[in-house]
């Protein structure tokens, strides 16, 4: 019943916040994710386990650290939409930065 687990995974605001954080980056550690939420590390760990069961998050061991990545397939169109949109804005804002750059000195992308 993976469909049901996707819904219940999405029903919690902390888990939705975790998915948003993961959608913004390639991968993140538990510590990085816990720093973004006003809940304990243990709670974040439990949320990640649930998201993992729903197939929304994959855990990969890198050395001594576990990295979490979004596996958005169960979200299908919604996440594809967000990724497509984010990529379009990245391109547009890079062009705007170049357009506005004075003396050939470009600005800095703060958060891509």
């Amino acid at each position, binding site marked *: 019943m993976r469909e049901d687990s996707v819904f219940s995974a999405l029903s919690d605001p902390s888990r939705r916040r975790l998915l948003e954080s993961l959608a913004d980056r390639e991968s993140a550690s538990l510590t990085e994710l816990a720093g973004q939420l006003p809940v304990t590390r243990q709670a974040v760990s439990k949320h990640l386990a649930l998201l993992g069961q729903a197939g929304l998050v994959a855990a990969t061991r890198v050395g001594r650290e576990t990295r979490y990545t979004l596996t958005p397939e169960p979200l299908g169109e919604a996440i594809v939409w967000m990724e497509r949109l984010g990529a379009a804005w990245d391109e547009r804002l890079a062009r705007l*930065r170049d357009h*506005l750059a004075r003396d050939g000195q470009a*600005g800095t992308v703060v958060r891509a």
Partner: protein
Amino acid sequence: MEVEREVLLDAPPEEVWEALTDPAQLEEWFANDVEFDVERGGVFRWDDGDVRHAVVEEADPDRRLAIRWWDPAGGEESEVVFTLVAVPEGTRLVVTETASCDWSWGLQAYAGRQRLLCAL
């Protein structure tokens, strides 16, 4: 559902505002063909055939520009908000695009699911 991006621009807010609202400048970085009026909105066209119609919801010069735009062929509608903040380096520009949730999610649009996805 919302996408947010932030960029630090090497120009003061007044110049960034011009780049966001002047059709000639918009054609330099945003779209290939731009008809735009900060009072009314306009039409953006891209060479790949993409078209967006836009209306301006809020224009606070040098600070905040909010537009609602949609694809006249597909109906996808979203709100784009540009927020400009003066910083020592120039301007911090934050862009958010928020999808309205009344368009179809295609195959996924069955009871409950759309609401949950929109909550993202």
